[in-house]
C-alpha cells in the first residue's frame, strides 16, 4: 500500500517537474507571442492590447499558474495555428501517433529478438557477423533517411504502398495500416537495430551460465534450452531498453511524420514549432514528455509481471 502511495506521489512530483521544465524552455527563451500572431509589421497599440489580453505582461509565476490551472480543469488553451481547442486536437493526434508507435515497436521487437538470439547462439561465426553488421548499419542511418529509401522503393518503384497521408483506423482500417506502415518501418528499423544489439549481449551472458549447462546436460533439446530457458532470462533487459526507447520513438515521430505527411502528434508538434505556436508547443511538449514517463512506468510494472523473482521480494 505504501509502495503504491509512494509511487503515485512520485508520479505527481515528476509531472510537476515536467511542466516546470516545459514552461521554462518555452518562456524564458526570447520571442514574443503577440508579435508572432500579428506579425512584425503590426502597430504597437494592437500589440500591447493583445499582450494584455493574453496576459503576457503578468509575472511568469502567474502565467505558469494560469496554464497549469487551466490544464488541471481540462482547459488546455487554444492553438494559434490550428484555431481549435488544443485538448480536442491533441486527443485526435495522439491516437494517430499511437498507431505508428505500436506498429514500429511490434516490427522492431519481432525482428530484433530472433536476430539477437541467433547472433548469440552462433556467436563469432558468420551468422553473428551478418546480424551484427545489419544492426550496426541500422543504428547508423537516420530514420528520415530510411524513410526516403522506403519511399523510393515501396512507393515510387514498386507502387505497393502510399508515401504520404493519414487515414483514421476507425473509418478504414486496412487503409490506415497501409498509410502507417512505411513511417512505422522507417522508425522501427533503427529501434530494431538497437534491440538486436541488446538481445545479443544479454543472451550471450545468459548462455554462459551454469543452469544452461545443466539444462543441456539433462538432455533438453537445444531449442528448448535457447528459447525457453535462456530467452526467459534475457528478455528483462531487452524490455527495459525497449521501454527507454519509447522516448526515442516519440522524438522520431516528429521527423518521420513530417516526412510522410502523417498528421499525428509529431507532425502537429512540428507545425507548432515552425509557426512558434507557443500554447500548442507548451502543451504538446508536456503531453509527449508525460506520455514517455508514464509508458516507462508501465514497462517497470510489466517487469513485475514477467519476472517472478521481483514479485517474490
Amino acid at each position, binding site marked *: 500500500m505504501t509502495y503504491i502511495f509512494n509511487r503515485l506521489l512520485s508520479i505527481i*512530483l*515528476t509531472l510537476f*517537474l*515536467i511542466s516546470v*521544465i516545459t514552461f521554462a*524552455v*518555452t518562456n524564458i*527563451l*526570447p*520571442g514574443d507571442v503577440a508579435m508572432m500572431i500579428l506579425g512584425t509589421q503590426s502597430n504597437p497599440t494592437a500589440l500591447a492590447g493583445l499582450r494584455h489580453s493574453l496576459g503576457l505582461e503578468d509575472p511568469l509565476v502567474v502565467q505558469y499558474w494560469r496554464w497549469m490551472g487551466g490544464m488541471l480543469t481540462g482547459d488546455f488553451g487554444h492553438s494559434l495555428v490550428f484555431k481549435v481547442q488544443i485538448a480536442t486536437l491533441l486527443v485526435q493526434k495522439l491516437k494517430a501517433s499511437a498507431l505508428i508507435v505500436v506498429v514500429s515497436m511490434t516490427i522492431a521487437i519481432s525482428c530484433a529478438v530472433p536476430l539477437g538470439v541467433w547472433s548469440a547462439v552462433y556467436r563469432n561465426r558468420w551468422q553473428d557477423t551478418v546480424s551484427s553488421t545489419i544492426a*550496426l*548499419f541500422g*543504428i*547508423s*542511418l*537516420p530514420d*528520415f*533517411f530510411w524513410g*526516403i*529509401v522506403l*519511399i*523510393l522503393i515501396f512507393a*515510387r518503384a514498386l507502387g505497393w504502398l502510399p508515401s504520404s497521408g493519414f487515414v483514421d483506423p476507425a473509418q478504414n482500417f486496412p487503409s490506415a495500416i497501409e498509410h502507417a506502415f512505411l513511417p512505422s518501418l522507417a522508425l522501427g528499423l533503427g529501434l530494431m537495430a538497437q534491440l538486436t544489439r541488446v538481445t545479443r549481449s544479454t543472451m550471450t551472458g545468459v548462455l554462459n551460465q551454469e543452469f544452461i549447462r545443466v539444462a543441456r546436460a539433462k538432455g533438453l533439446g537445444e531449442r528448448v534450452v535457447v528459447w525457453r530457458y535462456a530467452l526467459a532470462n534475457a528478455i528483462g533487459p531487452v524490455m527495459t531498453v525497449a521501454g527507454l526507447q519509447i*522516448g*526515442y*520513438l*516519440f*522524438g*522520431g515521430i*516528429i*521527423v518521420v511524420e*513530417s*516526412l510522410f505527411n502523417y498528421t499525428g502528434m509529431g507532425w502537429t*508538434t*512540428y507545425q507548432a*514549432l*515552425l509557426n*512558434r505556436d507557443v500554447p500548442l*508547443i507548451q502543451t504538446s*511538449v508536456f503531453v*509527449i*514528455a*508525460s506520455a*514517455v*514517463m508514464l509508458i*516507462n512506468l508501465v514497462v517497470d510494472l510489466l517487469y513485475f509481471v514477467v519476472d517472478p523473482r521481483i514479485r517474490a521480494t
Partner: protein
Amino acid sequence: MKRFITPKGVVGFALIVVIAAVGIAAPLVIPADMATRMTMSLRLKPPGFEHLLGTDQLGRDLLYRVMLGAHTSLLIAGAAVAMSVAFGLPLGIVSGYMGGWTDTALMRLVDTLLSFPALLLALTISAMLGPNIPNTILAIGIAFTPFLARIIRGEALRVAQMPYVEAARAAGANHFWMIVRHVLPNVFPLVIVQATISLAFAILAEAGLSFLGLGTQPPQSSWGLMIQASRDYLDVAPWTALVPGAAVALSVLGLNMFGDVLRDVLDPRSR
C-alpha cells in the same frame, strides 16, 4: 593497445580519420564559389566524370557540398558533445560522489529531463531561440546533458565506494582534492567512450534538425539540409538523397564501430 587492433576498430578509426580530415580541410581547399555557384544548365546531373557525385537541384557540385557538410556536421556535433560533457561531468560527479540529498535531488531532475525525447528538446530550444549554428549547438548540447550526467553519476558512485577512496575520505582528504585526484581519473575512460557514442548521436541529431529546417540554415552546407532539398527530386535524381545519406551513415558507422571497440577495452562494466 593490442585490443584496439580489431578489424572493427581499425575500420572505424580509419573512417573517423578520413571524415575528420575532410571536415577540417574542406573549407580551406574548396574555392568558395565552387560549392555555392548555381548553374542552371548543370541541374541534377547524375554522377559522372565532370561531377563525381553529380549535381543538385541548383547545379551545385554534390562532392563539394557533401565535403563542406562534413565541416558543419563535425563542428556542430563536436561542440555540442563538448558542451554536454562540460555540463554533465560536474553534475554526474557531484551527484555520485556526494550521494544523499544532493544525489536524490539532482537525479530526480535528470530523470525528469530524460522523459523529454532528446530530439524534441533540441527542436524546441532551437525553434524558440531561432535556428542558426550556435543555437543548434546549444540545443543539442543541452538535450544530451542528462544522458551523460546519468551515466557519469553511476560510475562516480562506483568509484566513491571503492575501499581506497573511502579510506582517503576517512583520513580527511578534502572533497575537491578527492574528486580531482581519484574520481576524475577513474571516470575518464567512461567519458571517452560515451563522448564517442554521443558524437554519433549528435551527428544524427544535427542532420534531423537541419532536415526539419530548425538547424543549419541555407546557404550553409549541411547533410540534413541536402537530404531535405532532395525530397522533391527523388524520382529523377535519387543520388541527391543518397550522397548526403551515405555521408551521415559512414560517419556515424565509423563512430559506432570505434565506440564499440573503445567500450570493450575501456568500460569497466564490460570487462
